[in-house]
Every structure is written in C-alpha cells, then in structure tokens.
C-alpha cells in the first residue's frame, strides 16, 4: 500500500521530562490547599466532618472510576488484540496504575469506618440489621467493618497488580522490543477481565451502594462501570490532547485515534443512559418500597428532582447529540471542550449518587436541616479541585521520565497507519 508510515517514533519529545518536575509539586500543593479548604469549611458549617466525608467520597469515587475505566480500556485492548489504540494505551496504563496510590487516598474513608463511625455508612453499627430490617441479616453479615477493610485491601491489591502487570511489561518492551511480552499480556488479559469485572461489581456495592444499605439494585455495578469507562475515556482523550498541545507525542496520536476514542465516548454515553434508564424503569415499574425509596428522594425533594432531570439532560441527551457527528469527533478543539464537559458531568453523576444520602435517612426520608440540594462552592468545589490536583500529581509521578507511547509495540506500525474509513 502507498503512504505507509514506518513503525517508529518520530516526535522529538515523548515523555513529560521537565513537566514532571513541575506537575508533581504543583498538584500536591493544589491538593493540600483544596482539601484543606474543604475540610475547614465543613468544620465551620453545620455538617462537620460528616459533610466533608461525603464531599471526599464523591471525589474519590470519581477518580477511582476513571482509573478503573482506564484499566478496563487496557485489558480490553489486549483482549481484542486491538492495534488502533496502541499509541494511546500508555496514557491509559498510567491512569490505571494510579489505582494503587489511590489506596492511600482511600484511608480517610476507611479509617473512620474501622473506628466505628457511621458518618458515611449507616450499616456500621452493631445490630443494624436487627433494628432496621431483620430480613437483611445476610447483608449485615457482609457489611462488617472488618470485611469491608479486607475487601478493599483485596481490591487495591488486585487492581494494582493488574495495572503493574500491563504497565511494567509494556515499559520493559520499550527497551527490549520483545514481542513475547505482548503475547503474555494477551494471555493474562482473559482471566484478568473476569476478575476485574467481579471486583468492580463488589467495589461499587461497597463504595457507593452501601451508603443506603436497605436499597437493592443489581444494575448498579453496571451503572458504575458505564460511567467509569466514559470518565476514563474522557480523561485519556483530554490528557492526550493536552500532551500534544504541550509539544509531546505530536506525531503518534493522530486524528483517527481521537475519532475512535470519541466514538467510544459516544457509545458509552448512550450505554450509560441505557443502563441508568434500565435501572430506573425496573424500579419505577415494579414499585416495590425496598427499591423505590432511593429514587423517591431524588425525585421527591424539589431541589433534587431538578438535579435528577439535569442529569438526564446533561449526561445523556446533550453528549449524545454533541458527539454524534463525524466532523466534531475529528475536531481537536471541539474534543478538548467535550472531554472537559464529560469529566464534569461524570463528576456530577457521582455527586448525584452519593450526596442524596447526606440529606436522607436509610429509608430515604429527609433529614431535618440537611435537605435540599447540598452543593457548596466552599466545600465541594475546592475538594474536587484538590483531589483532581492530587490525581494529576499521581499521573505525573508515575509517568515521570517514561515514554508516553509504547515505543516498540509490535502493532505500533498498524496503529500509526490506522485510518477510519
């Protein structure tokens, strides 16, 4: 074929290099200031540490779901022997690797639970099931603080191992060019995908669904997954765009890679909507009190009802229409805006999942003085900025001086010549 690009790296700059030196301290500084502000303003407000816990959990879930979405992307790339995404895979690998340091950021959630706090999780008291719903004794046996801690240790160990497996082997291949590493990663991606799915299901139960422990929804893990992959894809695309704007890996990621990433974002936007609606429809139609109370608060409270409709419009309809056309998927300026928008709305999705539990009891009844739409510019906004700052520092720290594209991947040539028909 004519016009074939050779399978080698041509960009002059393919690592963070100097940027790494700047980004890590900057991110840590923003993180310290943002989280510190959120903590202080929470302490000053009526909510106290409980309010801060909810803001923190929202942002932690947001970042964890992005990392898990990127881990999913890496595994699925190997599972399908995909060639198109080789040049963007390293960014996903680094984001996936962030799951391991995120374990440290999980401590502010875990330590209070271990110490018996019910700020976040109302199940964390003795005889919780007996007092609220004896039928849920089995759930209560599952939701013990020591099981909770053990499960989270296992999740982070498994995800960290998976991410390290892919990132480590890929980095090794950069130096040796050994194609057997690709085959090894392909082989391990099969069973890793199964374990990944299982851990993600239970992690979503533990992290967000157990905030209202009386609620039942088997669809929730899929909902969490759909949003997470969308967030992961948006974070990858945004990172690639920003790296290219700063003069890095300019030749390797072409408009066709962006086109495919945008197609995936479009697909997962609708997949998210499909799952969100499936979860809602079954509960709405069956009309069983054990399930409806979760939505009842979100549609019954006047402020939250508007917030729920906003989620439908801004998380489904607008991105669905906005990412539909081919021309906009291939427009980098537009994609820069679209990915920032998607990350914001994905953050809002987690806010919508987590925050109503702050203002309602375990049966979905409003708590006096804590009702209404609780977004606070003094607490949630600095918390989000600070956490994202920490996340950027983590990314920069892991990326370091390492190449941001797999230099010797056997499918690099195919990826460089990838063309969307």
């Amino acid at each position: 074929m004519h016009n074939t690009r050779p399978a080698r790296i041509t960009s002059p700059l393919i690592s963070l290099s100097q940027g790494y030196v700047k980004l890590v301290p900057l991110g840590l500084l923003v993180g310290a200031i943002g989280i510190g502000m959120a903590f202080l303003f929470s302490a000053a407000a009526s909510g106290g540490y409980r309010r801060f816990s909810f803001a923190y959990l929202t942002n932690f879930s947001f970042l964890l779901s992005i990392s898990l979405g990127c881990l999913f992307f890496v595994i699925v790339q190997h599972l399908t022997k995909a060639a198109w995404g080789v040049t963007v895979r390293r960014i996903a690998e680094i984001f996936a690797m962030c799951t391991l340091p995120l374990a440290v950021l999980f401590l502010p959630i875990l330590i209070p639970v271990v110490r018996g706090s019910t700020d976040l999780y109302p199940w964390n008291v003795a005889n919780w099931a007996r007092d609220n719903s004896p039928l849920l004794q089995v759930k209560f046996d599952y939701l013990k603080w020591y099981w909770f801690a053990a499960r989270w240790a296992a999740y982070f160990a498994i995800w960290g191992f998976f991410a390290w497996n892919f990132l480590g082997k890929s980095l090794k291949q950069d130096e040796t060019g050994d194609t057997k590493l690709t085959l090894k990663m392909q082989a391990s991606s099969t069973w890793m995908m199964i374990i990944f799915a299982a851990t993600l299901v239970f992690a979503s139960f533990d992290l967000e669904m157990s905030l209202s422990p009386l609620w039942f929804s088997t669809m929730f893990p899929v909902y969490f997954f759909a949003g997470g992959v969308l967030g992961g894809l948006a974070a990858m695309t945004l990172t690639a765009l920003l790296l290219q704007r700063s003069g890095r890996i300019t030749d390797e990621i072409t408009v066709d890679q962006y086109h495919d990433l945008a197609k995936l974002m479009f697909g997962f936007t609708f997949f998210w909507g499909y799952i969100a609606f499936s979860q809602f429809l079954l509960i709405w139609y069956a009309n069983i009190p054990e399930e409806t109370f979760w939505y009842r608060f979100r549609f019954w409270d006047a402020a939250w009802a508007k917030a729920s409709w906003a989620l439908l419009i801004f998380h489904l309809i607008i991105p669905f229409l906005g990412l539909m056309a081919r021309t906009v998927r291939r427009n980098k300026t537009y994609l820069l805006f679209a990915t920032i928008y998607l990350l914001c709305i994905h953050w809002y999705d987690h806010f919508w999942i987590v925050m109503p539990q702050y203002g309602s009891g375990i049966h979905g009844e409003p708590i006096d003085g804590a009702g209404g739409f609780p977004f606070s510019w003094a607490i949630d906004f600095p918390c989000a900025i600070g956490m994202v700052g920490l996340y950027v520092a983590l990314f920069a720290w892991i990326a370091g001086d390492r190449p941001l594209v797999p230099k010797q991947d056997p499918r690099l040539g195919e990826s460089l010549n990838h063309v969307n028909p």
Partner: protein
Amino acid sequence: MAHSHSKQPKPAGPKSKTIGLLAQFDDPDSLVAACERARDAGYEKFDAYSPFPVHGIDPAMGIRRTRLPFFVLAIGLTGCLVALAMQYYTNAMDWTKIFPGYAFYISGKPLEISPANIPVTFEVIILSSAFATFFGMWIFNRLPQFANPLHRIDRFRRATNDRFFLMVNADDSKYDANRTRQQFEEWGATAIENVDMDLTDQEIPKFFKLAGIVGLFLLLVPPVMIFRAYGSTNRAPRLHVVPDMDWQDKYKAQQTSPNIGTDKEPVYLYADDRAMRAPVAGTIARGDLQEDDRYYRGYEPGTLPPPAQPVAADGSSASFVSTSGPSAQDSAPAAQDPATTGQYPGEPDWIETVPSPFVVSETAIARGKQRFEIYCSVCHGYDGNGNGLVNKRALALAATGQAQWTTAKSLHDPTVKVQPIGRIFDTISNGRNSMGPYKAQIPVEDRWAIALYVKALQETGIQPAAGAAPPAAPQQ
C-alpha cells in the same frame, strides 16, 4: 459482445450503445493511483471495482462522504415520534370518534407518555434506523439493479478474484473514446475494453406489468377487510382451537342427568335425574361430622323439638335438620314474651355461654370485631344500632317506593339484648326473618367470635336509636 438475441429487434434505433470504457489493473495500488489521476483529470462519472475493500480509495476517487447518516438520523427521529404517538394514541386517546384508542390502566401507571413508553420507543428507533440504513443504502446506490452491462464482459469476472478495474462512463463531460483510452494506457492499464449496453428487449414484459397492477389491488384487500370488520357484527361461532378444552366431558354441580338416549325416547344416566351423586348413606365428608350441638349449632344437645315438617326420607343428618329447624319456627306466635321468660317456644335450649373449644380472649373479641365490621356492619352499623350504609340506602329507596325493606334490627334492642349467645350464633348461621344465613361464608369459630363481639357491644350501654329501631312486635 454478442448481440444475437432471439427476439426481433425494434425496427428503428441502434442495437447497442457504448456506455463507457473499462481499464484493467493488476494490483490495488495501480488502481488507487489511476483513480487519483482520473479524479485529477476532471472525470466525475467513473467507478472502481476491486475484489476487496481498498482503504483510501474514496478520497482517491474524489467521492464525497455519504449523506446516509443524516438520512438515518431523520428516519430514526421520525421513528421516535411515531412510536410515542402510537403509544399515546392507543393508550391515552379513547375519545376519538372512529378507531378510538383504549385507555387501560395497568398497575396504576399513567396513561400518558411515561417511562413505560421508552422501551418501545427505543426499539422503534432502532428498527426504523436499521431499515433506513439498509434501504437507504439501496436507494443511494440505486439498487437493486437487475442487470449490468459489465457482467457481459468475460474479463470482468476476475473483478471478484484477482483483477482491479476502472470504468469511465461515456456520459462524463470529459469522456472522449480515444483520449480516455490513451490516458488509460498512460496510467498503466493492462487491458482496455469498450463497454456496450444491449438496447434490445428494453420493454418490461407485459406479464410483469399485469402482475404489478394485480399486486397493487391485492394490497388494498387487508385494509378494506379491517375496515369492514370494524363496523360489522358477526354471529358466527368463534373459532375453537382446542375443542376438548372448550367442551369438556364432565358434569357440574346442580346439572341434570345427561340424556344418553334420544329426544323421543330419553334415557337418563341416573334415575333420580341428578348428574351428581349423593353421599353414600351413612357416610359423611371429612370435616363435616359436626356432632357437637353446642359448638356447631348453639343449643344444648337433645333439646331440638321435633320438626314441623317431615324431612327427606333417605335419612337426615343432624346438621341437615338444624339448618331448617329453628328458622322454620319464625311464624310461631309470640304468646309468651321471651324478653321476660327467656324461653323461645318451639326452639331448643340455647346455650348461655360460649362452648368449648372456643376460648374467650382479647384476640377473639378483636377477631369478632373485625369480622363484624366486614359482614354485619353494612346493615347493623358499626355500633350495632341498625344504621349501616345498606340499611340507610334501602330505607331511602323504600321511602319512595323503589324497594321493599325490613329495617335492620338494632342489636341494642331489649328483645335482642336478652337473647342467649347460642341464639345469636344461630341467627348468624341460619339467618332470621329477612336476614340471610352466613353459615357458608363465615367459619364456625369466627361466628362465635362475632356473637361474642355482639354481646360485648350490647354491654357498652348504647341506646337503640329512635328512628332506626324497628317495630317491637312481632319479631324476636
């Protein structure tokens, strides 16, 4: 090309015309290069043929991107509106004069557009978009084509195997037979050939036209049949798909004995003319023994007076007698005042206390209250004063002559208050005066619970309402 078709050629006009020039290439790169040069040379009406999809050939040919996605989007959105309108029409619009929808509440869900409509809408969007894609592709590609002159060229068969072709149409503004052939040679064509179209037999056969017209008329049949069926009634029996389920070989309670003879000489299966058999003499169904007169009938054993009328000759069980026994005595003259004597002539000795195994307890009274409010309060009222809703309504109707009604008795009436509990139980079981029997609806234990509750009500000291109280005589 062979033009030796058997049909007679038309008297005038040429037998064939050249529609283009075909060039053969031996590899895809030459084809793409030739396409680029044809595009640059200003040709617009030309096409490339390859055994497999060649990436990048579309821009090489200067083909603009397809408009199919916009077509699909438009049809998909139309499908969305059609699906919503269809559901709204069928489920929420029952006021249209002709072909009304059917407002049918399901699980209390709203009739109007609701989340329940979304799955159908979603499916219709998918279906209409899929059809739009498939048939839109046909339309944009001018398919189906039943014949293509290229298929008459032997060389062209290798377009599905290992050769690559480029054809420039003769009606292209830049086409010139000699110059184009020269360009093909320059671009590295390995073979060049004229493409001719056979102009004989251009007419559509008459049979196809006829079949088309008939088909169009046949398409009208279903809507006409539907319209006709909509406005007509039909007395024909409905179709029985499973006849032995519709007509089962069995007889039901209270049916007459089947006639197994003829109409003129009937022979009945059973001589007594009943389809069902009575229990064998001397037997009793499980749970129907009910020997205990105190518990099941409310009087002291052996105090039942002899019946006024003889009962059936085939042997009567005690329960059968008691059903009609006491109630049959309603017409007995009230010679003695039962309120003072406590005696009810012609009736057995009613028991004064609840019989075992019934146990008086708070639970039993609560149960009696609940059952009383279900079965009794509609006439006797919640407080037993005879002012239940049915009674009120019936009295209102009776006042205008629209109904006949015996006023429901106040349970606080002195004549009722003195009655032994056994007699109240009997009234509930078998009815009295115009009150019907409740034996069939209410189990024995619940009847005792109600009787107990009535006694408890009477102890509350409520006075009989003046208006609602019935005339004192001649009833008990």
